[in-house]
């Protein structure tokens, strides 16, 4: 199957849902059908096969395909088990738009296509309206687009070697700006709706975007892999420490979740920066964790955060363990791989990462409590998210194989 | 099976008769009577059987039996390779504290007693560090000149600690309110193990014959007499000199011994 369908079907689903806003059931049905077809198209797409029907050379890498499937699953999980108060059709509209964008990013044959999709997604999200000003909402993605474009220019232009290094800097900075990690954190309003907040960038679109950008980076600046990796590791460590400490100490619960995503991205950046198989595998596992568990948990914690009713039930503690990357959750396996990868590269790095890993626990306990007492669908959702995470943690092999690792 | 039964019988005999309970009772009874004569100026014997029928006495008797069979007494039915100085040392250490289980008031100056016991333990086990053996008769047999200083110093420390461990010093428990001198059955049970262990560790083993038997018991008796004499001197000089002796002399001396053990081990390595 061609990647165009993987882009087109969710996009059509999203448009249908938007047009049928007045009839939520019909919207839900139409969007659901198209969404499922879209995910099926992703699943049936042969990874690595290039489609040139539109003259764009679209192709899905195995990693991107795996994360697209995970994102689809996460969306299905959050939509099906969304708290009743949330309008599922709206969630599906935005989710499918995001999924279409992600599929486009994943399939894009050039960095320019990725940048254009990012711009469009940013504008679409900004168009939804929010308490933040338009310029503020667009800052991060626009900077990302500009930096990635600059990177492309620097990488392609003839000139001294340091241009390539500048390209590497721009790529890493652009990626960071798109994700909203340090030092390019997006402005976060705790009271804002999730769909219009920076969360979709860091938790939903980000994983596929990062893989796509790095895949393009390997083609653009093959000689500067070391510089690229070093910067990513450096930023990764910075994000780990800052994300954990801020998530622990910040006053607002929703902001704590935002910082926790940043901390997880620190690990991912380290893994991707290692540029060896273990690092990649660790990053993929962590991205699975972000998409399939941390994001749904965040969504389900919103109500409890608003009502300010933290809880210490078993499920909260299990969620805390999952968020902290304790065994047997996926985070632990990822950490094992990360430590091993860092050891292969430079053992003091593994020591630094190992020490930073200990920072996860206090914020995770806080976040676990912030889930409140999930009931009904929400409780099932939390349970399923935890179960998925345990399965990935105990037996990551098939999930890594799906990503071609 | 026969071997097991035979071993059980042999060890039972050792525990109950020789050098176990019976020997302990005879030797200890005599020593205790002699001590009360010296210390209190009168002959004191157990007045009632009830005095002896105490769980503390029973426990100490069990421990004393176990310690006694570890000594290198001639004709000891327990084979030489089955004796262990750690068993003797630890079991004897237990005897001191059985009364603490009853009430702390019955143990005089427990902190100081503990320090003394540590010193005594060093005297018992220190000489075993370099020979790397725990068989009592092997330790007694050590005559290597390089190890002799440790052995002699340890023996001296053992003797210094003995009066305190046997309760021959003038320190009395805070809860002690008896005016009438009594026969201390617990102490009586400890005389032979302590004195016999000294004879085992610091003298060459006696042969399994009558002269050997006489030699062993002669040394053991001499140690008991020495202990009684030392206790008597302490009693005459009072509580504070005794306390001072152990605090200011014995403990630092034990530290010196420890250093000596270290240096000796290092030199002989």
């Amino acid at each position: 199957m061609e990647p165009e369908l993987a882009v087109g079907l969710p996009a059509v689903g999203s448009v249908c849902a938007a047009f049928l806003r007045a009839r939520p059931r019909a919207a839900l049905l139409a969007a659901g059908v198209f969404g499922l077809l879209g995910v099926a198209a992703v699943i049936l797409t042969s990874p690595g096969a290039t489609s040139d029907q539109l003259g764009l050379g679209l192709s899905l890498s195995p990693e991107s395909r795996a994360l697209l499937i995970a994102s689809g699953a996460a969306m299905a999980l959050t939509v099906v088990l969304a708290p009743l108060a949330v309008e599922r059709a709206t969630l599906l509209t935005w989710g499918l738009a995001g999924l279409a964008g992600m599929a486009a990013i994943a399939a894009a044959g050039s960095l320019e296509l990725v940048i254009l999709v990012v711009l469009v997604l940013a504008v679409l999200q900004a168009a939804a309206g929010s308490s933040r000003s338009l310029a503020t909402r667009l800052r991060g993605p626009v900077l990302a687009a500009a930096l990635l474009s600059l990177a492309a220019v620097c990488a392609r232009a003839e000139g001294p070697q340091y241009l390539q290094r500048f390209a590497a800097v721009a790529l890493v900075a652009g990626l960071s700006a798109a994700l909203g990690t340090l030092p390019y954190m997006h402005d976060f309003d705790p009271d804002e709706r999730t769909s219009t907040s920076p969360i979709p960038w860091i938790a939903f679109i980000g994983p596929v975007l990062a893989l796509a950008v790095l895949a393009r980076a390997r083609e653009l600046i093959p000689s500067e892999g070391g510089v690229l990796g070093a910067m990513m590791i450096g930023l990764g460590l910075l994000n780990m420490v800052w994300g954990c400490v801020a998530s622990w100490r910040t006053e607002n619960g929703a902001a704590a979740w935002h910082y926790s995503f940043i901390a997880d991205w620190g690990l991912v950046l380290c893994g991707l920066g290692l540029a060896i198989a273990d690092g990649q595998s660790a990053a993929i596992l962590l991205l699975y964790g972000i998409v399939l568990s941390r994001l749904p948990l965040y969504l389900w914690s919103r109500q409890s955060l608003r009502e300010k009713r933290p809880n210490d039930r078993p499920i909260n503690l299990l969620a805390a363990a999952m968020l902290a990357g304790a065994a047997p959750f996926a985070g632990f396996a990822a950490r094992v791989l990360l430590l091993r990868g860092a050891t292969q590269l430079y053992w003091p790095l593994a020591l630094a990462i190992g020490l930073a890993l200990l920072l996860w626990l206090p914020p995770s306990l806080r976040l676990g409590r912030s889930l409140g007492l999930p009931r009904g669908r929400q409780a099932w959702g939390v349970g399923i998210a935890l179960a998925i995470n345990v399965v990935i943690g105990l037996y990551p092999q098939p999930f890594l194989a799906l990503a071609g690792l | 099976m026969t071997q097991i039964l035979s071993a059980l019988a042999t060890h039972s005999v050792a525990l109950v008769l020789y050098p176990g309970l019976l020997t302990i009772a005879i030797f200890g009874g005599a020593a205790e009577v002699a001590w009360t004569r010296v210390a209190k100026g009168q002959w004191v014997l157990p007045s009632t059987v009830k005095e002896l029928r105490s769980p503390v006495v029973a426990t100490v008797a069990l421990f004393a039996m176990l310690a006694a069979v570890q000594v290198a007494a001639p004709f000891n039915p327990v084979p030489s390779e089955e004796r262990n100085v750690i068993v003797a040392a630890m079991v004897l250490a237990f005897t001191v504290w059985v009364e603490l289980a009853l009430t702390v008031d019955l143990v005089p100056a427990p902190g100081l007693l503990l320090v003394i016991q540590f010193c005594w333990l060093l005297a018992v086990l220190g000489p075993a560090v370099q020979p790397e053996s725990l068989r009592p008769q092997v330790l007694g047999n050590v005559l290597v000149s390089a190890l002799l200083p440790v052995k002699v110093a340890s023996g001296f420390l053992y003797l210094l600690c003995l009066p305190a461990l046997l309760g021959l010093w003038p320190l009395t428990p805070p809860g002690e309110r008896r005016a009438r001198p009594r026969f201390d059955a617990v102490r009586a049970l400890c005389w032979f193990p302590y004195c016999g262990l000294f004879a085992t560790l610091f003298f060459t083993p006696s042969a399994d014959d009558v002269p050997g038997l006489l030699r062993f018991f002669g040394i053991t008796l001499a140690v008991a007499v020495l202990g009684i004499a030392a206790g008597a001197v302490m009693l005459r000089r009072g509580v504070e000199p005794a306390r001072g002796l152990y605090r200011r002399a014995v403990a630092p001396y034990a530290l010196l011994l420890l250093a000596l053990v270290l240096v000796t081990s290092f030199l002989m390595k």
Partner: protein
Amino acid sequence: MSAAAAFIVWLGAALLVLSEGRRALALGMALITVGFAVLALAGVGALAASAILVGGGFAAGRRFRSGPDAWGVMPSGSTARVVLAAAVGLPALWISTSVMTGPGAPLRFAALSVLGLMTARVLTPSEPPAVLTALAALALSVAAAAGVAGTSPGPAVYVLAAIAAVGISLIPVRELDGA
């Protein structure tokens, strides 16, 4: 010809940075569109140039029809923006001509100028019409930047950039700004 086109692009970008009114914004967008179309015609071909013209033209037209009816060029307190326009233009010129070597310096200058100036426009506090116009221009510059490579990127990127520019300019500017 290319150099003039590049200069026109920079001029358009500078006008976008310096203006608040719809007329000036539309003119800036139009200048950028024309400049990039000329450069695309030289580098990639007519299809790419047409796509740029259509996309950019649509964006300029939309901007001309919505927003405050004024030029609003260099309102009070624009000194910093003037400095910015020059500060981005001069390094872009230096980099594209001196640091980077090989043919296509005008295209590099144009792309770098628009990237820098439009990003600055979005990052500094701005009204939604200006932001959306800057984004449309940015989309075009992203496609134009693809032409920096020695090999032609093909017209598809330009078509997509044009679609993006059209899509961005279709967003209604009302209700966009937050509370």
